[in-house]
Each structure stands twice: as C-alpha cells, then as structure tokens.
C-alpha cells in the first residue's frame, strides 16, 4: 500500500515538469491515485521556480522542454536541494542512450521511458521516497553525532589541557586529523618553580586514541604538583598506561624539565628527535632511546639527558604527524624541510608559525592523515614563575597514585653552633625506626643521609674544598681545618627533611638536604663521576649515593639535594 504521508507527518508533494499538457495530466492523475499531492511546471525554468516555492519531495522531469530543458533544471534543483535528498525521476519518450547518460550525470536518480505501466511508476516513487527518508534520518543522526563529538572533545581537552602554563611561556600547537586528537600536550610547574613539559602521541587518532589522555594528564599534573622528578613521572605513566591500555595501544612520549638555572633535562621514548635550537642552528638532538610508554612492564632506562640552554634558545618537540605529512606527490614533509625552516626562521620570529606555514604550503590542501603537534619551550623561565607557585617543596603524596595515603614528614634545621654540637643523622634514623620498624635498608639510608649531610656541611656551610683530600697529607689537613671552622661557626644553616610514604609491601623515602652555601657545579660533578682517577679521593660520596638511590637531583646551584629511595617488593 502506498503511503501518502511521510514519516515526518507531512503530506507527500510531487512536482511534475512536462511541456505537453496531456502528459502532465496523466502523470498528475496517476500520482493522485497513489495518494500524493502534485504541482505542475511546463518547462525547466518553471520547475525551478516551483521547486523553490513548494519544496516538493520528489520530481518527475521531462527531458526536452522549451525555455530550459529538464537536464539543466535538474542540475539547478540538485544544487538548491544541497544536503537534502530530493529524488528526480526522468520521464520521457524514447530517447537515445546519450540523453539517458547526461540525465543521470546531471543528478537524475532514475529513468522511465514512456509508455509504462502504472505499477512501475508507483514502485519507483515509493522506493525513492523510502531512500530519501533513510537519507534524512542518516543526515540527522550524523549531525547529532558530530555535535556530540565536538562537545565531548571540548570537555576532554578542557579537562586535559586547560591546566597548562600560559602560552607566552610555552608555545603549543595541535591540529587534530579528526575531531578527537590522539596527541596530548601538557605543561606544569613543579613546586620549586621548574617547568615540566610533555608531548604524547597515542597510537592512531580519533576517539579511541583520545581516551588515554585523561589518566595521562592527571598523573602528569598530580605528580608535577607534588614535586616528583620527571623520571618518576615517566615511570608512573608507564605503569598506569600498562594497566589501562590494551595490547597494541601505546603512547610515544617526550618529556623535559627546565630549571630556573637554565638547565634542561630531556627524555624521548618513541617520538621524532627533540631539537635544541640555538641561533638558527640545531645544536642538540635528543633521539628516542626507549620504546613508547605502555608497552614494557618496567622501564629499562629513564636516563634524562642534561643540557645547558641560553634564554633565546628554543627546544622543539613534535609528533610524527609533522614529518609524515604528505603532499600531492605522496612525498613526506621529512626532517630536511623542517631543518630548512629552522635555519631560515628570522631571529625573534615564532618558530611554530614558520613551520606551520611551510607545512601548509607543502601539503597544499592534501588531507591531513595524522595529528600534527608542535611545542616550543624557551631556554628561560618567566620571572614571576617562582612567586606563582608554592615556594617550598610540597610534602604531600598523591593518595590516588599510590593507594591509600600514608605519609609522614620529619624536618630539622640546624644553625650556627648547633651544627657543631649535634648531628641530625642519628635522629633521622631513629625517627624512621620508630615509625617503620626495623628494615634491612636502613643501613643504606644511613649512608645516604650521612653523605648528603656531610657534603652540605663541609662544602656548603664550611666552604671546604674536596680538592684538599687528594693527597694523604691533605686528607689530614682537611679534617683539622674542618674542626677549626666548626668551632668558630656563628652563621650558616643546614636543613634535613625526610618524607616517608608507605606503599604496598614497602615504602618510598625522599631525603632533602638544603644548605646556606653558594652551591657547586653539580653538572660537572655528575658528568665526571667515575671517569677520572683524580676523583679517587673525592667525589666518592656522590657516586655512592647515586648508586644507592633511585633518583638524585640537585637544584638551586647545588645547594639543595633530593634523593629518592624505594623499599620492599616494588623494587
């Protein structure tokens, strides 16, 4: 049974265009029999006018008509209908195959040669109306879907990226291949003012790639705010993604920490080389040294490479979508073109804008296949950075990261003569024993605290040089001098903090020692550890501590040192 009313509740209206009046009337009669309404036009021009005025659901079109033929009229009507699907059926006397072809090419949906049986026309009209119903249903669903996707994308990127530091400090650009991006760009300050920046690229793109972004950014932000080291953050993201992502999905990642002293440490697992650009030249490249995160249960190597940077230097991080963008000839953009842009970018110009405009010229309207992301970090931190964030080391631990929160902090500060009178090392150890009971690892903790404390006191406060210890005589002289300076000490201070967090089957201990001294060149020290025979009498302390601890970090020119140790089954 034909339906005279469409699903939308509107009556079906059919436009009949034919220059021969008896033909029009015959068709109108048939259409009426089917239960549909009709309107008439006697040439192509009229047909267009009627279409504009009445918006019919279907058109029956003659081919040859005066003023404007059916083929031209069809082209115009199809264009006006735009997104809407309005079936056009050509109804014509016998014509050659050429006419049929051009009718279909102009946008016609079907062809009916006169004379024909009533049922044939009826069947075609009903079938085409059914398709047009489906078409509008799909269009409606599609509009709804893309609206929802846009909304979800907004929510997600707000949740993930709204916490980033201002664009004036770190320039970020993200250009997704689809509504959802699998690239994640994160930046945040540590409590001591250091800046952490991370670029992540999840496998693939679109919604399935974007779902990991939330846990990633939460881990990054929570741990950065708590003052964790970049090494620990990367390790924790790896653990979290390992649990969360199905096999075959992973995150290529690069991460850096920039300090107020102008040093930057960088790690790359699976992204294109991170580049340090100085005066228009690439001076360092940090190649991927590790598989992407979420593949291996435990990271083999979270060694960050350390560099000194100048304020006008730029550190460039990018996703492979940049280098693998293709032009019409299917060539890849490649690093060679990127380097060209870097070298030609005039001083003071924004590097990201320069790369983007080169990329746009190269792709020349070709479809973007993968997410494109770029980050530039300058070689300096904004002055107000330190005041914006909490000044001291944040002694809290994220309960979410490590299970139920179970943390205590112990702190002592010694000034002047009390440095001579007491040693805080034993007190620290007894606090640890009292709270956590006996553990075989306390011996190593003792070693670490002793080494760090003595370093702070001898070199930081007393200003003794370890060079003195190079010869056996010097060794003795060193301790004489030490005793003398201690006795007359009336200023200077050393503070020692412990923070212990219980974890399943063990714990994590952060030891922090700060002295009032001028600091030392720790970069040089760390680099030269174990490398020279000269160091045999001195430097053993740091070397030892470095071997025992999971992480050892110096900051504030070396007058603050932090060591992190783990105990128990976890390590």
């Amino acid at each position, binding site marked *: 049974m034909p339906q005279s009313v469409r699903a939308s509740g509107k009556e079906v209206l059919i436009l009949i265009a034919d220059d021969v009046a008896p033909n029009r009337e015959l068709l109108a009669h048939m259409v009426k029999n089917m239960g549909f309404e009709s309107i008439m036009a006697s040439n192509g021009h009229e047909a267009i006018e009627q279409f504009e005025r009445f918006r019919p659901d279907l058109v029956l079109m003659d081919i040859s008509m005066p003023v404007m033929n059916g083929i031209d009229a069809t082209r115009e009507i199809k264009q006006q209908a735009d997104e809407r699907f309005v079936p056009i059926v050509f109804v014509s006397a016998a014509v050659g195959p050429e006419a049929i072809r051009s009718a279909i090419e102009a946008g016609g949906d079907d062809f009916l040669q006169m004379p024909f049986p009533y049922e044939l026309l009826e069947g075609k009209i009903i079938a085409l109306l059914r398709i047009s119903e489906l078409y509008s249903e799909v269009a409606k669903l599609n509009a709804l879907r893309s609206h929802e996707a846009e909304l979800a994308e907004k929510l997600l990127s707000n949740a993930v990226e709204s916490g980033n530091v201002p664009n004036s400090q770190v320039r970020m650009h993200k250009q997704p291949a689809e509504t959802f991006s699998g690239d994640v760009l994160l930046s945040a300050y540590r409590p001591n003012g250091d800046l952490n920046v991370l670029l992540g690229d999840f496998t693939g793109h679109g919604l399935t790639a974007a779902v990991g972004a939330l846990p990633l950014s939460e881990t990054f932000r929570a741990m950065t705010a708590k003052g964790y080291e970049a090494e620990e953050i990367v390790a924790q993201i790896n653990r979290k993604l390992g649990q969360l992502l199905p096999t075959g999905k992973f995150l290529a990642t690069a991460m850096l920490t920039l300090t107020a002293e102008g040093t930057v440490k960088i790690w790359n697992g699976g992204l294109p080389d991170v580049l340090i650009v100085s005066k228009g030249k690439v001076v360092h490249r940090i190649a991927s040294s590790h598989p992407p995160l979420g*593949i291996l249960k435990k990271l083999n190597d979270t060694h960050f490479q350390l560099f000194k940077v100048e304020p006008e230097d730029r550190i460039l991080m990018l996703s492979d979508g940049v280098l693998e963008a293709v032009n019409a000839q299917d060539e890849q953009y490649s690093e060679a073109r990127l380097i060209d842009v870097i070298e030609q970018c005039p001083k003071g110009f924004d590097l990201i804008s320069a790369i983007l405009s080169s990329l746009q010229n190269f792709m020349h309207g070709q479809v973007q296949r*993968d997410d494109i992301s770029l980050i530039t970090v300058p070689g300096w931190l904004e002055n107000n950075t330190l005041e914006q964030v909490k000044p001291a080391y944040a002694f809290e631990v994220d309960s979410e990261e490590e299970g139920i929160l179970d943390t205590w902090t112990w702190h002592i500060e010694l000034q002047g003569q009390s440095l001579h009178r007491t040693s805080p090392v034993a007190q620290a150890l007894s606090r640890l024993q009292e709270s956590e009971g006996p553990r075989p690892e306390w011996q190593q903790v003792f070693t670490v605290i002793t080494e760090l404390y003595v370093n702070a006191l001898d070199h930081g406060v007393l200003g003794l040089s370890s060079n003195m210890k190079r010869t056996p005589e010097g060794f003795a002289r060193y301790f004489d001098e030490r005793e003398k300076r201690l006795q007359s000490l009336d200023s200077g201070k050393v503070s020692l903090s412990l923070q212990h967090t219980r974890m399943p089957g063990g714990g994590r201990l952060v030891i922090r020692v700060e002295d009032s001294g001028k600091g030392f060149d720790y970069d040089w020290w760390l680099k030269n550890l174990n490398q020279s025979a000269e160091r045999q009498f001195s430097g053993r302390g740091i070397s030892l501590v470095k071997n025992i601890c999971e992480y050892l970090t110096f900051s504030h020119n070396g007058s603050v040192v932090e060591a992190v140790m783990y105990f128990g089954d976890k390590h």
Partner: protein
Amino acid sequence: MTVSVRQVDDKNIVIVVGEQFDYSLHQAFRNAYAQVQKPGTVFRVDLARAKHMDSSALGMILLLKEHADKLGGRVILSKPAENVVKILTIANFNQFVTIES
C-alpha cells in the same frame, strides 16, 4: 593479497606483509596467526616488501608478540627496508623484538 602466510615447518611460520603495513591489514594480519596454537612457534614477519609502516602496524606486532609469548614462542622481524627501520628504531622495538636485516 596484502598479507600471506607460509608454514615453513611445524614450528616456523612466515608472515609476508605487503607494501603498506598499516591499519588496513589489521584483520588479515591477525588471521595470519590467530589459529596457530603450537607451543614454541617462531613467527617471522617478512617486511622486505613493506615500504611504509605506521604506529598501528607497531601495535599489530605487539599483538602478535603477545600471542607468541603465550605460546612460549617468539617473533622475528625480518628484512625491513630503510623507511621501516627508521620507524622501528624510533620506537626502539629492537629492545624486545629480534630484528634481522
């Protein structure tokens, strides 16, 4: 055919991948090994013909490795061309999969 399988003997299987090693091969690649349940099977992925490889192909290799690990077997990536070596190197797959030139 973009993925073909050759059974060398009862413990050695060679999976030959076509020019574009990407998500479009997902199903075919999976079919190539999913039925193999013989313990200790060595899966050799012949990459000689692959000109390009994307990150979803890396994911497909990880899935194959998971399958091989379950069987106590292993995965060997063989004869990758320069472009593909570059991608494997950036991802540091040599740290846990054997790559033969």
